[in-house]
C-alpha cells in the first residue's frame, strides 16, 4: 500500500516539475532580490521587515496559487487523459490514488518552499548583514505556511473530486479568502441571535482558519511564539487535512467513472 502511494506521489511530483511549476522560483528570486536592493533606497528603517514580510507573503501566495491550480487538475486531468483508468485497472485503490496525489502535491510545495526559504534568508542576510537569534522564528512561520498548503491541497483535491476544474478553482480561492477572515466570521457570529447564531458559529468553525496560521507579522517583529501554538496549529492543520481528504476519498470512491 505504502509503495503504491509513494509511487503515485513520486509521479505527481515529477509531473509538476515537468509542467515547469518550479519556474515560479525565478519570479520569486527576482521579487525578493529586487526588494532587498530597492527597499533600502526608497524607505527608511524597514529593510529587514520588508524582506521578511514580502518574502513570507510571497512564499504563501505563490504556494497557494500552485496548490490550487495543480490541485484542481489532479483528478480531472487524469480522467481527461484517460490515464486514471490505466492506474485504477492495476491493484491501486481509489483512496490510495487520492492520498498519493495529495502527497505528491504536498511534496512539490515543500520543495518549492525550501528553495524560497533559502531566498528569504539570503535576502535577509544581504540587508541585515548577519542573522540574529529571533530570525529562527522565520522557520516556524514557514512551517505554518506549509501547514496552510496541506489544507489547501486537500481542499483542492476535495473540490476536484466532484467538480470541474474551473468551479474547483473558484471554490478553493473563495475558501482561502473566507478562511483568511475566519476570526471576523466568529466575531459576526457573536453579534447574531438564535438559530442564525448557531448557523454562523458552525460556518465559522467549519471554514479553515488561515488567520491562525499567519504569524508573518509577529515573526517580522521578532515576537516569540508559544510551543503550544505550534503544537495546536499542527494538530489543527492535520485534522483539517484528514477531514478534507476523507471527504475527497468518500466522493471519489462513489464517483461513476464510466
Amino acid at each position, binding site marked *: 500500500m505504502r509503495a503504491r502511494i509513494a509511487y503515485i506521489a513520486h509521479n505527481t511530483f515529477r509531473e509538476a516539475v515537468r509542467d515547469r511549476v518550479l519556474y515560479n522560483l525565478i519570479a520569486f528570486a527576482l521579487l525578493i532580490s529586487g526588494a532587498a536592493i530597492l527597499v533600502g533606497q526608497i524607505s*527608511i*528603517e524597514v529593510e529587514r521587515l520588508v524582506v521578511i514580510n514580502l518574502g513570507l507573503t510571497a512564499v504563501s501566495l505563490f504556494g497557494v496559487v500552485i496548490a490550487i491550480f495543480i490541485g484542481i487538475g489532479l483528478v480531472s486531468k487524469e480522467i481527461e487523459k484517460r490515464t486514471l483508468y490505466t492506474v485504477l485497472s492495476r491493484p491501486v485503490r481509489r483512496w490510495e490514488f487520492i492520498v498519493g496525489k495529495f502527497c505528491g502535491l504536498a511534496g512539490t510545495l515543500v520543495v518549492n518552499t525550501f528553495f524560497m526559504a533559502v531566498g528569504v534568508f539570503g535576502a535577509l542576510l544581504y540587508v541585515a548583514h548577519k542573522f540574529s537569534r529571533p530570525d529562527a522564528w522565520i522557520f516556524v512561520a514557514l512551517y505554518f505556511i506549509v501547514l496552510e498548503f496541506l489544507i489547501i491541497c486537500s481542499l483542492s483535491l476535495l473540490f476536484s473530486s466532484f467538480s470541474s476544474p474551473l468551479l474547483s478553482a473558484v471554490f478553493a480561492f473563495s475558501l482561502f479568502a473566507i478562511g483568511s477572515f475566519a476570526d471576523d466570521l466568529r466575531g459576526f457570529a457573536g453579534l447574531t441571535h438564535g438559530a442564525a447564531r448557531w448557523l454562523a458559529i458552525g460556518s465559522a468553525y467549519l471554514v479553515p482558519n488561515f488567520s491562525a496560521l499567519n504569524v508573518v507579522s509577529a515573526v517580522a517583529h521578532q515576537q516569540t511564539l508559544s510551543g503550544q501554538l505550534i503544537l495546536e496549529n499542527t494538530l489543527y492543520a492535520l485534522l483539517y487535512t484528514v477531514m478534507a481528504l476523507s471527504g475527497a476519498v468518500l466522493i471519489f470512491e462513489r464517483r461513476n467513472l464510466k
Partner: protein
Amino acid sequence: MRSRRTTIAAAVCLIVSMTASVLLLRNIDRLRPTRSNDDVLYLESPKLIRKASLGFDGLMACIYWTRTVQYFGARHFARAQSYNELAPLLEITTSLDPHLVPAYELGASFLAPAPPEGAGEPKRAVDLMQYGIAHNPDNWKLYYDLGFVYYTELKDYKHASEAFDRGSLAPNAHPAMKVLAARMAENGGDVTTARILWSATYQSSKENIIRQNAVAHLRAIQVDEDVTNLQNIVDRFVNQNGRPPTSLWELAAAEHWTDVPADPDGVPYELSLDGQVLVANPDDFPFITKGTPPGYKPGPPKFHTNQN
C-alpha cells in the same frame, strides 16, 4: 531556412515595436498635463485596507510606510507648504502594523515641525506617539519622541518632563531620560537641556538621517551659544569704547585671545559694521537662530555626517 527567417523577422518586429511604443509613451507623457497623485488616497479607511490585505497586513504596512516616506520626501524636497495626506498615511500604516516603530519615530518628526520642514501638525504627532506607546509600552524611544515633540514644537515642558519620566521607567531606557525629565521640569528652555536632548538622539539612533539631523541641531546650538557670548563681549566693548570693534581681530587683541573665534567648521565669525556678530556661512548651519544677516532666508538643510 524559412523558419529561421520568420524567427528573425518576428524578433526584429518585437524589438522595433517595443522601442517605438516606449518612445511614443514618453512623448504622450510630455503632451499630457502634469498630474500629481501626491494628494490622492484612494482608500482612506485603515480597517478596509486591513481586511483587503487578507491577513498580510505586515507587508501592507511596509508598503504604506514606504509610500509615506516617498510622499514626505517628495514634498519636503519641493519645500511644500502642505502635507495633507501625511497624517492619514501614517494612521493607515500604524493601524496595519501597530508595532512598526519607525513609523512612529520618524512619523512624528515628519508631522510636528512647521512647513516646509514638516506638516506643522504637532498635536497629531502627539496623538500618533500616544497610539504607539499604547501598543508598545516597553519601548522607551517612543516616550522620548513624545517628550521631544512636546519640547521642540509645543514648548510644553511639563508634558515633556512627564513623557521623559514615564520613558525612564521602560526597560533599557537611555540614562539621559531621567536627566531630561528633571531638567525639563526646571529649565525647559535652556541650551544645556537642548544639547542633552540632541546628544541622546544622536546616540540612540542608528538611522543616518536622524543622526545627521541631530548633528545639525547640535552644531546650530553651538553656533547660537558662540554668537550670544561673542555679542555680549562686543556690546561690552561698545560700552567701554563708544564704538564697535573694527574687526574681530581688534576684539581678540582687546580680550587677549590668541586667535579670532571660529564656528564649528573652523571658519572665523564675522563682524558687521554696526557691531553685529555674524556667521560666515549660515547655509552650513541649518537651524541657527542667531548670527544671520538681516533678511536671510535659510535654504534646505545640508547635513554633515560627522559630529564636531
